[in-house]
């Protein structure tokens, strides 16, 4: 399907449905910042239209399938240790269930957690 044929709003709604089912048992939820959530989901729809896969919008693609598949949203299982430390995923689409204000979460470089 050409990118222009995808209705972005419809696809965002379906990704929201599917992602929610994946992240909930992992202890995460969508960010309460709705504007940010909508923006990130829209970027994923655009990436999916281009590559056929909704990659994380804040990570570069490396043309290395094994590494690239680890940034397919929701990428929580592949980077769990780091995300549990910072209580959010890298782009901030998902946060720990107990997070009310994502802006107050501390930054912590990945290298300080482990060598993923």
């Amino acid at each position, binding site marked *: *399907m*050409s990118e222009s*044929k*995808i*209705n972005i709003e*419809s*696809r965002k709604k*379906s990704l929201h*449905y*599917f992602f929610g*089912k994946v992240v909930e048992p992992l202890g995460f939820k969508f960010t309460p910042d709705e504007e940010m959530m909508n923006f990130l989901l829209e970027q994923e729809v655009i990436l*999916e*239209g281009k*590559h*056929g*896969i909704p990659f994380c919008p804040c990570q570069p693609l490396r043309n290395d*399938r094994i590494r690239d598949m680890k940034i397919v949203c929701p990428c929580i299982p592949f980077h769990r240790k780091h995300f549990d430390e910072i209580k959010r995923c890298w782009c901030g689409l998902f946060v720990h269930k107990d997070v009310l204000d994502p802006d107050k979460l501390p930054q912590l470089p990945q290298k300080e957690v482990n060598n993923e």
Partner: protein
Amino acid sequence: MSEKFSKAILANEIAPGGMKSVELDGNEIVICNNGGKYYAIQRRCGHMNAPLDMGTLDGIYLTCPMHCAQFDITNGEALSCPVPADLGPEVLPPIIGGYMQNIGMLMKHVHTESIRTYATKLEAGWVQIRL
């Protein structure tokens, strides 16, 4: 479109979350049960004609078994293009590699279209469809 509804199947033939294909007046149709609400869609995928009743239904979203294109069963809208195949790191023999390259070139021109939906109603235990 006809105004007449036709009996398709007994409602209790499909468990919630299930699907079943029927043929009515030459139309291949899949009936989906989403929590007791019935939807009817064309059976053939809008991408490459695969039978959608062999796919996966999750809520109102149906995923094609062949290339994982997704559709909204409430309105037939195509929601995503097929997921690209992974041929793995193995280098294919030239004759197969060339064939796959040709297929890949052709596939770029195959679009995923939205699929047709049919009005349904539940009457006397039957799911009825308007063709």
